[in-house]
């Protein structure tokens, strides 16, 4: 008897898992945005579009691209929408013809940092990276990118693995373009480490395992809000990295995908993004004053210029060279 009960309940359980959500549109978003950002957007999106059941996979850009590649191999891409900060990936996917162009409804209200814009992918936020340091252990704030090469950060400065994290890859690439490989070699000589994901290096800085790290704005500021002994500073040459969003061609949920793209670019979506501590792409949305983020125009002026096309070609070589230096 008991076994029969167990059987029934187990089948019910498994059955529920397999049942499609009742009369709903589905949507899979693969994104490198962390829970603090994508979780809030999901909640707000669900309130506005209850007819869409949104699921997301939040992981580093490198992992997501690996997953997408494996899914393409097996014939079916599960993701409908891709949203990461690894811009070259988007140009590459565009070249391979797997993206569905969609010009968002409110395009006129948006700042576009991407050259040759044709609606294939649209920047949703301008990610910035600065130096996060643990205020419990470091008393003098670093001011320039060279400051983390000094004795204060010896053996305890971290950069996320560019093979895993899109922002880390873009940053390494930009810093090398600006300061040359000598910059990375000097960091390594000072004992800098390559960590795992972009979230992990910030967490390690908050805990004190690292004294400082190359850190993404909202990941750091979210922890500061929760009371972490962290501070984020921006050296004069800024790292400003757009995070584009795109829809996969042939997505069975293209309509829901368009709703999501429009939502994250709407004033409501952009306000959530700004509240979380990262730069919005709408000029009618302001970042709260408590954050050390410069205004969009200022950030763009200070930004190290980006050449996406050449980045795409150099990607593998850059990652390999960086890894070799860091693991020497």
């Amino acid at each position, binding site marked *: 008897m008991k*076994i029969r009960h167990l059987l029934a309940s187990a089948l019910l359980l498994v059955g529920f898992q397999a049942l499609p959500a009742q009369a709903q549109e589905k949507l899979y978003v693969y994104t490198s945005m962390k829970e603090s950002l994508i979780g809030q957007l999901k909640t707000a999106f669900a309130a506005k579009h209850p007819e869409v059941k949104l699921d997301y996979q939040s992981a580093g850009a490198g992992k997501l691209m690996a997953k997408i590649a494996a899914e393409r191999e097996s014939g079916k891409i599960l993701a409908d929408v891709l949203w990461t900060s690894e811009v070259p990936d988007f140009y590459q996917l565009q070249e391979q013809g797997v993206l569905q162009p969609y010009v968002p409804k409110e395009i006129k209200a948006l700042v576009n940092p991407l050259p040759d814009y044709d609606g294939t992918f649209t920047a949703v936020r301008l990610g910035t990276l600065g130096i996060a340091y643990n205020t419990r252990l470091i008393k003098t704030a670093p001011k320039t990118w060279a400051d983390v090469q000094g004795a204060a950060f010896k053996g305890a400065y971290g950069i996320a693995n560019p093979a895993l994290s899109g922002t880390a890859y873009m940053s390494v690439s930009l810093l090398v373009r600006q300061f040359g490989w000598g910059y990375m070699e000097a960091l390594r000589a000072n004992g800098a480490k390559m960590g795992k994901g972009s979230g992990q290096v910030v967490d390690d800085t908050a805990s004190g395992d690292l004294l400082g790290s190359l850190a993404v704005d909202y990941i750091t500021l979210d*922890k500061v809000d929760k009371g972490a002994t962290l501070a984020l500073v921006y050296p004069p040459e800024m790292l400003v990295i757009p995070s584009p969003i795109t829809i996969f061609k042939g997505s069975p949920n293209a309509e829901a995908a368009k709703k999501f793209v429009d939502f994250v670019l709407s004033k409501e979506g952009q306000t959530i993004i700004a509240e979380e501590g990262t730069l919005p792409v709408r000029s009618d949305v302001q970042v709260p004053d408590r954050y050390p983020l410069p205004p969009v125009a200022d950030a763009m002026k200070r930004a190290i210029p980006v050449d996406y096309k050449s980045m795409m070609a150099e990607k593998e070589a850059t990652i390999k060279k960086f890894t070799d230096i860091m693991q020497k």
Partner: protein
Amino acid sequence: MTGSFRFGTPQILFGLAVAILVIFVAVPVLLIFFNALWVNGSLNIADMVKVLSERETYKALINSLILASGVTVTGTIVGTFFAWLVTRTDLPYKGAMKVLFLVPFMLPSFIGALAWKMLLSPRSGYINRFFIETLGFPGPIFDIYTYQGIILVETMYLFPFVFIQVCGALERMDPTLEESARISGADLFTITRKITIPLVAPSILSGALLIMLYSMAHFGTVAMLGIEAGIYNIPTLIYERIHQSAGSFAAIRTGTVLSTVLVIAAALIIWLQNRVLSKGRYQIIAGKSFRPTEIRLRGLRLPLLAFCIAYIGFTIVLPTTTIFLVGGLKTYGLPIAVENMTFDNYHHILFEWDLTRDAIWNSIGLGLAAALITMFAGVIISYVIVKMKVPGKGLLEFLGMLPFSVPGSVIALGVILAWSGKYGINIYNTIWIILVAYIARYMAFALKANSAALEQVHDSLVEAARASGATMWQALRDIVIPLVRPGMVAAFFLIFLPALRELTVSVLLYGPTTRTIGVAIYTLNEDGETVYAAAMAGVALIIIVTAEVVVKRVFKIEK
């Protein structure tokens, strides 16, 4: 029955048994070997050697070996010592101590690893911080991200393998052997050296080999503590390759080659273990004439009791408490103090966050489904193996036990090869692919439990039923199944409980909505969401311990 090829119940049973084993077990494992050895349709050993001679792969092999040997040595020493202490000495409260030493078996070692990371990571671990900040030490007292750290953590959670075996042997040992030595004038030291140790040696060795088998194929601890410091073993390297190389064939091939090595090593260990056991078994036949003399610890009684309590406090209480406390921190890195605590993390993962809620239901659903399916399949297959006189059942037995020696990462890889569309069925990214892998992984448990139960059902019972006119099916339903029900229930729990906390297999197979509890904790930690990882681990501990306790209750009632 023999001779006539009527298509009756026995044929259906036999066919079903073969089909289940071939589809779920044989195909995935064979595909691993096939992909490892064949390149573009021809046998290519040279290429396999080439993969193995790459720096990263052979380093992973060596690391697996170093870690497994280290854990085996320390785990055996710890396990044997405590087993001796609770069975052969007059240690106070030794009954309770024996139960407590088995608790680490309940705790998933990757949760232990997470806790020890929080306690002993060089700059921020709470223990290290205490020594540096409060006691003024110049540097950390212990760095967990090292070989020693990994060995230490694995030892804490794997020593029960030896402990259980040695306890059993010491309790079953024929005390007259020791008594006759004593009567002949041998002192305690001589008795221990010449009688006791040789008698329990096979049990020690067999427990040690179990530790080695487990540790070599172990993913969680090495993934949590090793990857950061560049320490990879075979399962973590397989994971890294599969996840980072875009699922390319080169990555899968490296995985299959590494898997082959792992399978061969595991087979070797199992073979050794069988030899040891068959050699040692006749020597420890139970003869419960009277209890063996207890060694008087005298002045050491209390110090040793204190040591045992300290050990349990250090390896069980401290890490579990840390998990729950860090899970309640507002953000990682804050000191553990009332003003920094919150229930938000627990609330978020239990009621708001789909990722963690999905993970909990997935693990429970997968555990129940895998346990039920495997339990029924196990009865059928065991019946064929134990009761039916059909040719080729030896092969069935081999197939059924195969996953026992095949490490989890290998099964996962085999399942990817078999079920991701190449052969018509594509369940990649769905919950079903994990279920299929679990069925393969846990089949051996079901076979063991069911075979043991079936062997006790005498053939004459079925024959009597058949003679009275029952069909084969009726005889099975009315005679055999009721009699083997305890075996089936045992099989159910033997599978449900480990499946609940499984990580090695599901970490290679999970998709966006198909995380398991283990995967959720692991990926949260990897993403730098340490407090959420800890809170999730706390919830997992509650679920696991509740399941264990409930299960033990139910199980007793069934008996």
